[in-house]
Every structure is written in structure tokens, then in C-alpha cells.
């Protein structure tokens, strides 16, 4: 091995770097979905929101030259889609899952349509903070080039947990999610609370999308998301509706996704399809290990249509 190569050390490094690089969209979408589901509604449309966020963020960054403006616009586009979901679901006898699927198709379709002229141009990218300045190894330095959005996501998770647990707004949100009748009896407007929760969730998911197009992999095209939004929605169940657990789940998913390419690049080449499937095998295993036929999932808001 020559000096430039890390050999087997490359695998844990790649998993760590992958966890940091790949996890951010998962993190934002799952935090957003966590918030929405805590209010008693599922927004499956976040895949569409993610793609729409990626497109609108990239387009805005390209047109204005400012990537942070892209992040903002992506968030706003996301909350617009979230508001739409909440407003449709506020109508009588509307199923939130069906609306979510419709919005997923609408979001991706709209993003593909509007994003056509932005596939080719290169937009300015979000700057990364070089946390690896202390290392002499180029690989470590590159792995520790951390995007500020990742840090924002990390800070957001405990903040959300605290907010949901101790603030008045958080408690209202949880009452609405646990028992709509109790909330109604107390005089809270259920639809308004859910609208705000879904719009905020959409904002987060939109920001997550802008990370895809403005940081990593850092370009807009139609296969950019390849189902990450849906995976992140599933991560919320996996994380038991706990924002801090969402962080760990996202990191785990990001790291597991990096395992396949990393092993192949050091020469473990047999069975790479299996390594590529690692994140999904992992989810299945944990879901089976923690599920129970006797009681409903711990932490699940009681008003969710899937657990009711």
C-alpha cells in the first residue's frame, strides 16, 4: 500500500463519511415527518416535497447565485406542498395516506417539469466547514468537510424533542395527535394545528431536498432522490417518533449506504448487491426484532390512521 491509500481503514472512514454526507436528507425529512405525525397525520408526499425542494433550491441558487437563498426557497416550496396536504386532509372523509401519495406524484412530476432547464447548468454549492484541518490525510480532511445543514439538523433534533415535551405548543400538538376529541373539548382547533405541523414538516423536507442538489451529490437530475423521501418516512416509525432517535436512524442509514461502495473499492467485490441492500436488511431486522403482536408500537401517536 502506498502513502495515498488507506487500505482497510478506508472502510470505517467511508462509513463515517457516508453517514455524515448521505444522512442529511434522511434527517431533515424524518424530523419533518416526525413533527407532522405527532399531530396525528401521515404525509407520505414528502418524497415529492424532497424532489421539489431539490429542484427549486437548485434553480434558485443558479438564478440568484446564492445557495442559501436556494435553501430558503426549497423550504418554502416544501411548506407550500405541506399546506396543500393539510388543507385537503381537513375536508371530510379524506384519507391522508391517499392524499400523500397523490402529492408525491404531483411533487415529483412538477419538479421534473419545472426542472427541465436546470439539469445542465451548474449552480453554486453550499460551502462546507473544514473540520478536518488538523489531519494531514486528504481522505480524513475530505470526510470531515461537513455541511452546515447537517449541523443544523443535528441541533434541530434535541430542540424538537424539548419543544414537544415541555413547551405549550408542543403539548397542544401532542394532544391533537393523541386524542382529537380531548383537544376539541379543550377548545383547540385541530385542523389549524395539523396545518401548521404539516407545513413545518414540509419546510424541513424541502430543506433536506436542497441539501441533495446543493451539497451532496450536488447536482439536479431526475433520479436524484431515488426513494430517499419514502425511506425517511419509514425511518420515523423505525425511530419511534423520537426526533433524537431520528438522528441515529439517519446516520445508520447513511453509513450503511456507504458500506457497499467502500467495500468494493478496497477489493471486497463478491456479493456487492447484498452490501448495497444493507440499509434495507437492517431496517427489516430491527423492525422484526422490536415489533410485538400484543401492543401497538410504542410512541405511536394514537390519532394516526395506520395505528388507529
Amino acid at each position, binding site marked *: 500500500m*502506498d502513502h*495515498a*491509500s*488507506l*487500505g482497510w481503514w*478506508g472502510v470505517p*472512514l*467511508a462509513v463515517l*463519511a*457516508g453517514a455524515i*454526507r*448521505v444522512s442529511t436528507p434522511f434527517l431533515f425529512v424524518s424530523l419533518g415527518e416526525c413533527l407532522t405525525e405527532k399531530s396525528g397525520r401521515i404525509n407520505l408526499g414528502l418524497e415529492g416535497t424532497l424532489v421539489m425542494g431539490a429542484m427549486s433550491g437548485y434553480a434558485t441558487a443558479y438564478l440568484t447565485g446564492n445557495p442559501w437563498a436556494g435553501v430558503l426557497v426549497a423550504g418554502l416550496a416544501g411548506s407550500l406542498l405541506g399546506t396543500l396536504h393539510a388543507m385537503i386532509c381537513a375536508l371530510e372523509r379524506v384519507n391522508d395516506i391517499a392524499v400523500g401519495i397523490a402529492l408525491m406524484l404531483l411533487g415529483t412530476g412538477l419538479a*421534473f417539469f419545472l426542472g*427541465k432547464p436546470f*439539469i*445542465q447548468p*451548474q449552480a453554486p454549492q453550499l460551502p462546507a466547514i473544514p473540520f478536518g484541518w488538523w489531519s494531514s490525510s486528504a*481522505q480524513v480532511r*475530505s*470526510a470531515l468537510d461537513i455541511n452546515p445543514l447537517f449541523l443544523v439538523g443535528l441541533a434541530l433534533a434535541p430542540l424538537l424533542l424539548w419543544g414537544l415535551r415541555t413547551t405549550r405548543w408542543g403539548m397542544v400538538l401532542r394532544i391533537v395527535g393523541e386524542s382529537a376529541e380531548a383537544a376539541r373539548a379543550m377548545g383547540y382547533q385541530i385542523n389549524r394545528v395539523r396545518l401548521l405541523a404539516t407545513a413545518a414538516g414540509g419546510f424541513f423536507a424541502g430543506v433536506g431536498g436542497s441539501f*441533495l442538489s446543493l451539497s*451532496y*451529490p*450536488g*447536482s439536479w*437530475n*431526475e*433520479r*436524484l432522490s*431515488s426513494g*430517499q423521501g419514502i425511506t425517511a418516512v419509514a425511518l420515523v416509525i423505525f425511530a419511534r417518533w423520537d426526533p433524537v432517535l431520528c438522528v441515529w436512524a439517519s446516520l445508520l442509514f447513511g453509513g450503511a*449506504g*456507504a458500506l*457497499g*461502495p*467502500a467495500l*468494493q*473499492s*478496497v*477489493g471486497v*467485490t*463478491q*456479493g*456487492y*448487491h447484498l452490501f*448495497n441492500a444493507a440499509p434495507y436488511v437492517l431496517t427489516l431486522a430491527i423492525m422484526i426484532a422490536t415489533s410485538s403482536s400484543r401492543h401497538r408500537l410504542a410512541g405511536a401517536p394514537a390519532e394516526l390512521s395506520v395505528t388507529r
Partner: protein
Amino acid sequence: MGNALRFSRRSVLKTMTAAGGLGALGAGLPWTPAMAKTLVIGFLYVGPRDDYGYNQAHAEGAAAVKAMPGVKVLEEEKVPETIDVENSMESMINLDGASLLFPTSFGYFDPYVLKEAKKHPDLTFLHCGGLWTPGKHPANVGSYFGYIDEAEYLSGIVAAYASKSKKLGFVAAKPIPQVLRNINSFTLGARSVDPAITTAVVFTGDWSMPVKEAEAANSLIDQGADVLTCHVDSPKVIVETAEKRGVFCTGYHASQATLAPKGYLTGAEWNWAKVYTDFVKMVQGGIKPPNLVRGGLKEGIIKTSPYGAAVSDAARKHADDVKAKFMDGSFVIYKGPIKDNKGNSVIAEGKSHGQTDIALESMNWLVEGVTGSIS
């Protein structure tokens, strides 16, 4: 009363079909000089046409056709390899009067293009993939493909001169023969310069997976690869990642030079502009295009990207010498003895497989010097 109505309706339909048939017969023959006014040509792409990759290469060809006199070009993007291909072609034929169609994705051929060709025997369908077999497939279908691995061999030579770590990285989609052939030719080209060079391959599993492609590129660079190349639908993400990490890259499908002004060395490109304008000239001149067109650098079906600034004079000279041999047809890439990366002899001493050799079409091995496996 009812009967009379039914009879009259049927006869009306009959007359209409007959008239329509006659009309179609008159209007449909594409290479009769009487029809030489405007030739309507339809292009179908499987993805977006500005993807810096496979589809852009075809769209550049279509753009060259558009500039020719007496043609009208229709384009449709993102046509999946499903019955949608038939529907798109039907609407191009029926609504716009297209008489020459270019369904450009490999997976369009069977059954969609074949079905449409049987349904419209007087129109011409030219498919990208080189899949036409005489006797088995309709005569109004053509299929064309290029030996792009010749350009990959040249890229390998240039990469070898640029590499300091003697380690090259290849991000590939799936281990199918065309992809393996590109990986092998790239590696053979590099090892013709320095036999110590190795190529590490990462298969991502599908043609377009931006996040996984970026991960693969990063892992390869972390493992010391200092020249990257790829065979995926859109090399954009890989080329951008290489440039960001400060390593070299060579391109594929189309030129990605603008994405990596510092690190782009050269690349293997399709030259569909020449192929398509040739086809259209034939059809305009009343000549039936050949059913099977294949070729490499010599036939002008593929080309190489202009050398980047980082390419040394020695590399340019070496690559240009080999290119000249490709141009006069005297160079053979797959000349024995060649071993695979497990140590088995795959091409014996004294045996050689020229580009057109059908044995190369079922390649299922990786050449010595490649780190990777196909299963």
C-alpha cells in the same frame, strides 16, 4: 331500420378504410422521390436530453439533423422502456406524419420497436443497440452501435500517464458485456503504458443512482485512485466529485469537459451527429439505410474528447499514435495472451479478436489488473 343503419355504417367504414389505406400508401413510402419535400423524423430518449450523458449524446445527433434542409425533427424525452415507446411512436406517426424514427434506448427494441415496425412496414425505424438479425427481424428496422471501447482504450493510455498512485477508479452500473468491455479496454490501455497499474471497479447496480455514484467516487478516491472514469447514464455527478476532490477523470457518452476544467483529461464520446446525418441523407436520397451499422473510430461512429490541459505531451503522442492505428484498422485490443483477474487464460497466445468479433459480445470476465468481480 336498425339493420339499414348498421349496413350503411359498415359500408361507410369500409369506404373510409379503403380511402385511408390508399392515402397512407401514397403518403407513406418514405424513399420515393415524390415525397422528398419534408422528411419528418422522430427521436425518442429514455431520459432528459441534457444529462451530460447517453441522452445528450443522442440529442446532439438530433440537433445536427435539425440543421439539415428539408427535415422536421420531433423529440420526446423520458420515454420509459415500456408500451409508452409504442404510444409515443404512434403519435409521432399518426399526428405528425413521421416516417423515420430513432428510438434511441437499448431496451426499446424488443418487443416495442419490432411491433411498431410490423404495423408500419413502409416506415423506417433505426434503433441504437446493434440488435438486428437478418431473417428474424423486419426489413424496415435498422440497428446501429459503436465500438466505444476503442476510445476507452485511448482514455486508459491518457489516464496511465496522469496517474501518480498507479491506481485508477471505474464507477460502473451493471456487469453486462458492453460495460465489462469498456472496463477491460480502459485497463488494457492503461497497462500498455505501465503494467503496474490497477483499476478498481465499483458497480452501483443501476444506470442512474446519483447518491451511490458520488459515494463510489469518494470511496475510490479515498483508496488512492487518482483518475476516475465511469459507465453510467449521466457521468455528471462522478466528474463533478472528481473535480471537487482534486483528481483527474475521463468522460463517457458526451463531453463533460466544462464540468471539470482542471481534471478532465479526455473521454469516449458517441459521434451520433455523423451517424444520424448520414442516415438522413440516405433516406432523402431514396436509398434504404443498411440494417446493421457498427463501427468505431475509423467509421466515425465514436470520437474522443479533445485533450485537457493536464495531459502531457508524451501522453498525447502515445494516444495519437494508437488512434492512428485504429483509424487505419490495424490495431487489435483483444490480442492474446490475455488473462482474467482470477489468473485464468481467456485469450490464448497467438489468438486475437478484432472489434467485429462476435466472441467479444458475450464478455463475462474482467482482465488482469482489475480489482472487482462481476457477481
